[in-house]
């Protein structure tokens, strides 16, 4: 294996995209992913590609649309509020069957939130944040090494199925440094397979190509969507990726992705030392989600615990997979604060002992909320502003 280099997540990702043959990047600055455009700004020039600091996130995603339509490996990168702005363009690219790479280094939200790492955009990424029936291939790295190696995988999957791909990471992964190495040789874009659908100079020897997200004639859109759904079905069948640790004899399986999976793994190691049978399932593709795998694990273990830096979003997919067979609990760390391994340990123990420590439950919040804001003695209510 190659010697490991010390690299920052954002830079490993940017260099990984260059090595994967990305030759067009457009973006707009936002913390915590600024090293990506900064790196691209000089590196694209070195490799004969193009870098554009767009006037906005919306402009950037539409530049990607144009570049991808010509068949070039095109990419944009942003963080949560910026990715929200891109949703219209992403929906159009999904509708136009354009392969591309969109990176979201998630930060706290909603709104401007804060600039620390978070996982509050799971739903937006996996359900399609824009309008219409569509999916993105969503990859969730949990290390600087994966950040560096996933752009190639993302471009390959995206081109194979003509579905936009997203790398969904977070501010901690983007900002941290660790040892990493690339597991592939740099790709020369000239050696990539031709894209017969792409736009370009037509010397009259081929039929006219059209890139469009709409079908106005009666029944045309349905045909387009169903054709695309066939590819979605193939992706769900063939492209699920996950990592399994100590699940073989686990009584409790923690399900966590990205940086949360690392805190969860620390908890698993500590609990295993105490003789507690706990394992980790880390979805690497968030869509397609490892539904079958989780259903199989639900036949063997007593309960599952989702550890997420959100109010609980991935837990929806876990519950769908478990389909009521076993309880699924939540350890939630919203507001862009790092999940604490010791708290996850306590949460696992709580599940095994039937206590509630560190398990997150919205209905518990409702009880507390009753005591604070909605009672008549509350000052604001008395003054009638809430009534």
């Amino acid at each position, binding site marked *: 294996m190659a010697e*490991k280099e*010390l690299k920052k997540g954002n830079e490993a990702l940017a260099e990984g995209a260059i090595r994967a043959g990305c030759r067009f990047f457009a973006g707009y600055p936002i*913390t*915590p992913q600024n090293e990506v455009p900064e790196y691209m700004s000089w590196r694209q020039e070195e490799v004969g590609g193009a870098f554009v600091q767009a006037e906005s996130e919306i402009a950037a995603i539409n530049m990607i649309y144009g570049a991808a339509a010509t068949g070039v490996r095109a990419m944009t990168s942003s963080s949560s509020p910026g990715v929200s702005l891109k949703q219209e363009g992403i929906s159009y690219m999904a509708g136009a069957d354009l392969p591309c790479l969109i990176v979201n280094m998630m930060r706290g939200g909603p709104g401007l939130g804060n*600039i*620390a790492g978070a996982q509050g955009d799971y739903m937006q990424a996996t359900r399609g944040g824009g309008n219409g029936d569509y999916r993105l291939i969503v990859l969730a790295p949990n290390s600087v090494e994966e950040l560096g190696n996933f752009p190639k995988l993302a471009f390959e999957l995206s081109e194979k199925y003509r579905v936009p791909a997203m790398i969904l990471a977070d501010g*901690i992964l983007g*900002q*941290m*440094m*660790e*040892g990493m190495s690339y597991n592939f040789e740099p790709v020369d874009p000239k050696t990539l397979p031709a894209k017969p659908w792409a736009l370009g100079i037509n010397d009259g020897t081929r039929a006219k190509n059209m890139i469009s997200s709409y079908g106005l004639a009666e029944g045309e859109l349905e045909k387009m969507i169903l054709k695309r759904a066939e590819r979605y079905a193939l992706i769900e069948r063939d492209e699920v990726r996950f990592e399994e640790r100590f699940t073989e004899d686990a009584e409790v399986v923690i399900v966590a992705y990205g940086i949360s999976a*690392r*805190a969860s*793994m*620390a908890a698993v*190691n500590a609990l295993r030392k105490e003789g507690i049978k706990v394992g980790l399932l880390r979805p690497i593709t968030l869509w397609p989600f490892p539904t079958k795998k989780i259903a199989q694990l639900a036949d063997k273990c007593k309960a599952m615990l989702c550890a997420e830096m959100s109010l609980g979003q991935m837990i929806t997919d876990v519950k769908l997979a478990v389909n009521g067979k076993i309880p699924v609990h939540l350890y939630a760390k919203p507001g862009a604060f*790092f999940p*604490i*391994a010791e708290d996850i340990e306590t949460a696992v123990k709580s599940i095994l002992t039937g206590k509630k420590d560190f398990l997150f439950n919205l209905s518990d919040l409702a009880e507390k909320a009753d005591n604070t804001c909605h009672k008549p003695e509350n000052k604001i209510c008395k003054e009638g502003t809430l009534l």
Partner: protein
Amino acid sequence: MYQGVRIAGFGGQGVVSAGVLLAQAGLVEGKAVSWFPSYGPEMRGGTANCSVVISDTEVSTPVVCVPDTAIVMNEPSLPKFEPMLKSGGLLIINSSLIKTKPARKDIKVIYVPCNEIAEKVGSLRTATLVALGAFAGATGAVSLDAIENAMKKVFKRAKPEMIALNRKALEEGAALKAQ
């Protein structure tokens, strides 16, 4: 071996770069390492800090919440990082700039007059390297040779005489003992 370290000081003292150096040194020695900066809305002239983990096994969390060692280079960092330190942990204090004594009795403390030593060595800019030397000497988490090798990787354009100066600073720091 596991060392979770916080390095803190004024912006410009090189605490963030010192962290990169430490992580790179760990990597040189074949350890698993991570580095994480404080990148919040910091104020000019305010404090900066970073987390470094050096470990024999995979690093789970790059954000060090309960450090084994805290290296504090300026006065405002002491009240922030002393309470976070693990019981029995190591506190390395830049006694040139920090006059307050730590309150905790359950920790080891090394007082390092970093600025004075750095000036004696030949450049005030090596002050944080003196503290890194003290860390290496007291914990053995990384060797001085590894830090020197790391310097060549991290500061690619550094002149050999600057590397030699920094090496001297490391050695001066490593010679100091905990009180």
